[in-house]
C-alpha cells in the first residue's frame, strides 16, 4: 500500500502550541472564586492516629474547609488493583507522606498556614523498612493482613536436574534502586462543581475513565456525575497511573462548592507519590560448557511500600521477563511483593522489567566471559523464537523479533567499531573505556484475564473535516500525532483537517489506560476500525449523490469519485451538506480487543502476555578511575517496533528512554532511611542534564509488520529504557574490570569497587 502519512516525517500536531506557550496543562487553568488546597501529611513512617483536631485551622480567616477521613462520603480507599490506600487516613499512617487532612483556603499561603494548625496526635510504631525482614512472621505489620502483598512461584522442568546438567553455575545477588519519575510537571489540577451539580476534575493522568471510576467509589457518586479531563500531561512515565491528588481536590470542591486548585511542590511530590520498586534479586544460573543455558533459579523481593496499587501486576510482569528472552528448560521463579513503610511504589516505565533485566543480563555477561564466548553469539545460541516455550512455560505464538534485534545490534556502528571505544584513553590514562550490551523483552498490554480494549469514534464535522475521539492521553509520547496520522491514512484525508480529542471522559470514549505501551497500538487500531466504517458511510452517501453503486466509488484526499469516471466526484464538504439534509453527519465507531493469550499461567495472575516487544542496547562508557565517575559516551538502541508510524517520535522515545536508563544506571537513587526520604529534590536526586548526554545515540528499528496493530505497528513506549542499565554496567566491567551488583553505579560505589579490586590484586 502506498502510505501518505504513516511512516512519514510528520511534525507533532501539538508542537507549535507547545513552543509558543499556548498549551494549557491542567494547572494552567483557573476559575473565578478559585480556592487553593493543601494536604497535611504524616511525618511519621508508621504510627497510629490517636486524634485529629481541626478547630484551629477552621478558625483561621480565609479557610473555607478542612477535611479529614470523616468527610469521605464513599469508600475511603483507592488503588488500581486493590483499594487499600485511604484518601485520608483514619487510624493509622503507613508512610511519611500519607495524607491525613486537607484544607481549602482563599490563598496558597493561608492554606499552608492552616494545614500547620491541624493537630494530630500519633502513637509511633516501629518502622518496617527491609522487604526481606518484613516477610518474617515476627515483623511488625504494615497492614493487618500481613506484609506479603503477593507471592508468585512459577516452576518449569526440574530445577535440580537442570543444575546437575550444568558445567558452570553462577550465583549473585543484585540490587536495583528506587527511581523517581521526575516528570517536569508535578501532580496538579483543579476540581470544581458545575452548575448542574456534577463534578469535574482536571488532573493529568494515564487513564481518565479509571480515575472517574475510582473517584465514584470514594465519593459515592455515580460515574455519570463525574467528568475527568487528564490531558495534556507534562510527563508521567507511569507515575500518574494511580490516583494522586484527585480525590482530595474533589472532596474539597464538594465541601466548599468552589473550584479548588492544588499544585504539588517538588519536595512534596517526591516524598508523597509513586516510585519504581526497589528490588533485591537473587539469581542462580546454570549453563553447559558449550554455552547452552540449562537452569535458572530466580528469587525476587520487591519493595512495594505502604500500599498495593499495582505492586502485584508489576511483580508478575517482572517475573515473566526475569529469565530474559532465552530458552531455559529448568526454571524456578519465586517472587514476593512486600509491604514496608518505605513510601509507595507503583507503575513506572518498564513496570518491573528494568530491574530483573539488570540482574539477568549481568548474569549473561558474566557467563559469556567465563566461557570465553562472544556476548552476542552466546545470546543467539539461547535466544527464544516464535513457537518455542518461554521460561514461564507458555508458547510464544506471536512474532518477537529476537534474532533480528541481535543481528541489528551486531550490525550497529557502535558494535562494529567497538574497538575504537575500548581501552585506556591515551591522553588521560586514568580514563578506562569499555562497551557493553544487553537485551530485553516485555509483554505489551495488560495481560491475560484483564479486560483490554479500546474504543474510538470518528465524526464528520459540518465543513467536511473529521473529529477523532479516543480516550487515551497525551503524556508527551506523541499519541495525538500518531492518532492523527493513522486517521489521515485510514480515511485517506488531509491530516490538517483532522482534529484529535483525547483524555476526557465526557468527550472521548474509553480506550483503556495509556500504559503498558498500548496507547498507539490499541487506540490507533480502534481509530483504524472506525475509519473503515466511516469510509463505507461516505461511499454510501457518494453513491446516492452520483447515482452509482457504492462499490464503484473510490475515495482519496477529501473527495469521493467514480472509479471509472474520475471527473464524476463530490467533495467531503458536499457530502457533509448532503448528510445534514438527510438527518445528520456521519459518525463511526471502532472497537478493538487486544489479543490475549488463550491459556493463563497458573498462580500468576495476568500472565502470560501475548504480544511482546524486544529491545537491545549497546553502551560505551568512560570510567574515571581517580574519581569513580562513569559517563556514557555513546549508545545504540535496537527496537522491535513493527511498522514505524513516526520516525521522529520513535527516536524521541528511544533517546529519551536511553538517557533515562543511563540515569537509572548511574545516579538515580531515591534514598529512604528509617522511612524518611533523604533525597527529596533535584539537588540530591540527580537526573541527567544536557551535559550528561552521550555524543551519539543510534536508533535502529526492526520493522516487522505486526499483523494485529494499526498499519502493522507495535508499542514502543517503555522498552527503550529497559535494557539500558545492564548495557551500561556491562560496559563498566569491560572498561574497568569491576562488576556492579547494585545500581545506580554512583561515583562512590565505583570508587569502592576499584579500591576493592586493587586490594585483591595486591
Amino acid at each position: 500500500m502506498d502510505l501518505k502519512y504513516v511512516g512519514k516525517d510528520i511534525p507533532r500536531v501539538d508542537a507549535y502550541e507547545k513552543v509558543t506557550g499556548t498549551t494549557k496543562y491542567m494547572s494552567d487553568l483557573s476559575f473565578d472564586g478559585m480556592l487553593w488546597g493543601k494536604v497535611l501529611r504524616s511525618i511519621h513512617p508508621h504510627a497510629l492516629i490517636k486524634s485529629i483536631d481541626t478547630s484551629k485551622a477552621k478558625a483561621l480567616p480565609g479557610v473555607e474547609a478542612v477535611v479529614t477521613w470523616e468527610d469521605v462520603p464513599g469508600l475511603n480507599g483507592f488503588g488500581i488493583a486493590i483499594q487499600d490506600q485511604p484518601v485520608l487516613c483514619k487510624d493509622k499512617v503507613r508512610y511519611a507522606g500519607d495524607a491525613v487532612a486537607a484544607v481549602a483556603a482563599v490563598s496558597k499561603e493561608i492554606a499552608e498556614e492552616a494545614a500547620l494548625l491541624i493537630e494530630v496526635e500519633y502513637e509511633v510504631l516501629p518502622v518496617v523498612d527491609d522487604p526481606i525482614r518484613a516477610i518474617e512472621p515476627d515483623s511488625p505489620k504494615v497492614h493487618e493482613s500481613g506484609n506479603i502483598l503477593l507471592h508468585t512461584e512459577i516452576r518449569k522442568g526440574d530445577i535440580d536436574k537442570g543444575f546437575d546438567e550444568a558445567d558452570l553455575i553462577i550465583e549473585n545477588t543484585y540490587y536495583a534502586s528506587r527511581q523517581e519519575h521526575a516528570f517536569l510537571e508535578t501532580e496538579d489540577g483543579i476540581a470544581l462543581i458545575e452548575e448542574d451539580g456534577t463534578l469535574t476534575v482536571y488532573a493529568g493522568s494515564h487513564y481518565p475513565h479509571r480515575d472517574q471510576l475510582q473517584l465514584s467509589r470514594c465519593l459515592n457518586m455515580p460515574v455519570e456525575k463525574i467528568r475527568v479531563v487528564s490531558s495534556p500531561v507534562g510527563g508521567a512515565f507511569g507515575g500518574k497511573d494511580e490516583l494522586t491528588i484527585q480525590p482530595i481536590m474533589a472532596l474539597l470542591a464538594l465541601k466548599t462548592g468552589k473550584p479548588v486548585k492544588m499544585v504539588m511542590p517538588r519536595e512534596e511530590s517526591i516524598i508523597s507519590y509513586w516510585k519504581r520498586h526497589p528490588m533485591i534479586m537473587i539469581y542462580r544460573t546454570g549453563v553447559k560448557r558449550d554455552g547452552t543455558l540449562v537452569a535458572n533459579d530466580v528469587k525476587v523481593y520487591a519493595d512495594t511500600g505502604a500500599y498495593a496499587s499495582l505492586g502485584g501486576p508489576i511483580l508478575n510482569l517482572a517475573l515473566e521477563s526475569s529469565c530474559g528472552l532465552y530458552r531455559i528448560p529448568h526454571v524456578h521463579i519465586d517472587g514476593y511483593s512486600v509491604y514496608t513503610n518505605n513510601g509507595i511504589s507503583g507503575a513506572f516505565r518498564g513496570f518491573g522489567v528494568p530491574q530483573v533485566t539488570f540482574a539477568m543480563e549481568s548474569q549473561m555477561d558474566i557467563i559469556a566471559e567465563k566461557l570465553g564466548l562472544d556476548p552476542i553469539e552466546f545470546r543467539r545460541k539461547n535466544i527464544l523464537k516464535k513457537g518455542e516455550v518461554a521460561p514461564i512455560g507458555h508458547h510464544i505464538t506471536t512474532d518477537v523479533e529476537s534474532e533480528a534485534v541481535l543481528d541489528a545490534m551486531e550490525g550497529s556502528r557502535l558494535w562494529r567499531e567497538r574497538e575504537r571505544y575500548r581501552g585506556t584513553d591515551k591522553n588521560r590514562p586514568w580514563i578506562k573505556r569499555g562497551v557493553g550490551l544487553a537485551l530485553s523483552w516485555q509483554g505489551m498490554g495488560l495481560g491475560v484475564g484483564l479486560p483490554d480494549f479500546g474504543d474510538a469514534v470518528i465524526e464528520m464535522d459540518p465543513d467536511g473535516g473529521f473529529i477523532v475521539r479516543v480516550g487515551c492521553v497525551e503524556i508527551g509520547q506523541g499519541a495525538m500525532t500518531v492518532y492523527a496520522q493513522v486517521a489521515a491514512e485510514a480515511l485517506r484525508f488531509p491530516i490538517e483537517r483532522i482534529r484529535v480529542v483525547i483524555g476526557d471522559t465526557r468527550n472521548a470514549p474509553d480506550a483503556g489506560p495509556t500504559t503498558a505501551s498500548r496507547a498507539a497500538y490499541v487506540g490507533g487500531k480502534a481509530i483504524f476500525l472506525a475509519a473503515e466504517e466511516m469510509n463505507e458511510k461516505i461511499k454510501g452517501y457518494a453513491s446516492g449523490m452520483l447515482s452509482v453503486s457504492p462499490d464503484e466509488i473510490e475515495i482519496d484526499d477529501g473527495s469521493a469519485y467514480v472509479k471509472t469516471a474520475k471527473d464524476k466526484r463530490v467533495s467531503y464538504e458536499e457530502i457533509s451538506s448532503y448528510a445534514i439534509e438527510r438527518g445528520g453527519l456521519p459518525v463511526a465507531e471502532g472497537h478493538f480487543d487486544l489479543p490475549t493469550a488463550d491459556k493463563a499461567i497458573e498462580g500468576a495472575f495476568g500472565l502470560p502476555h501475548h504480544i511482546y516487544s524486544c529491545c537491545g542496547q549497546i553502551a560505551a562508557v568512560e570510567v574515571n578511575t581517580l574519581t569513580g565517575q562513569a559517563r556514557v559516551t555513546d549508545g545504540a538502541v535496537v527496537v522491535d517496533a513493527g511498522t514505524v508510524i513516526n520516525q521522529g517520535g520513535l527516536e524521541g522515545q528511544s533517546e529519551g528512554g536511553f538517557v533515562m536508563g543511563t540515569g537509572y544506571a548511574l545516579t538515580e537513587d531515591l534514598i529512604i532511611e528509617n522511612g524518611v526520604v533523604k533525597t527529596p529534590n533535584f539537588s540530591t536526586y540527580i537526573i541527567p542534564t544536557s551535559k550528561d548526554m552521550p555524543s551519539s545515540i543510534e536508533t535502529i528499528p526492526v520493522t516487522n509488520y505486526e499483523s494485529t496493530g494499526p498499519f502493522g505497528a507495535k508499542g514502543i513506549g517503555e522498552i527503550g529504557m529497559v535494557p539500558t542499565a545492564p548495557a551500561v554496567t556491562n560496559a563498566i566491567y569491560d572498561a574497568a574490570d569491576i562488576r556492579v551488583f547494585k545500581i545506580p553505579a554512583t561515583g562512590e560505589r565505583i570508587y569502592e569497587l576499584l579500591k576493592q579490586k586493587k586490594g585483591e590484586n595486591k
Partner: protein
Amino acid sequence: MKVTYIINGKKQEFDISPGEILLDLLRDNGYMEVKGDCYEGTCGACTVLINNVPYASCTTLAAGVDEAEITTVKGLGDINNPHPVQQAFAKFGAVQCGYCTPGEILSAYALLLKDPDPGEEDIKRALDGNLCRCSGYMQQIEAVKIAAKMMREAGDNGRV
C-alpha cells in the same frame, strides 16, 4: 509596594507584597507559559529572561527586579509568527510533553543573542539548567543548531 516591568514589550505595573516570588506573580497574572513547581531553582521550567539573561523565576524576588525587561516564551513569537528557535524546536522533534519547552527555548534564545554560532558544548552548557525528562536532549541540541543557522542565513540576530 509597586513594581513596573516591561513584559514581552508591554509596560505593566503590579502591586506586590515584599516577599512575592516572580514566578507566582507572573502566573497569578496569567503568564501561564511560565511553568515550574520545584521552587528551588533546580529544574529550569520557570525560566524567564530578565534583561535578556535567563533566570529561574521561582527563586527571584519580584521586588528585586523592578523596572526590568522580562521576556517569556510568548514574547518570542506566536503560532502565526514563531521565532526561528520555536520553529526549529517544533519541526525537529525537540518537543515531547512540552513542559520544559518554554524554559529551554528561552535559554537557547539567550545563548544565540550572545553567540550566533555556538558549538555543541556551548549549547549543552546553555541548556544545562533546563531539565527535560522526556527527550534525550539530542533533538533540542540539534534544534538550537538549526535555529542558529536559520538566523545567520536570514542575516538577523533574532532579537525580538
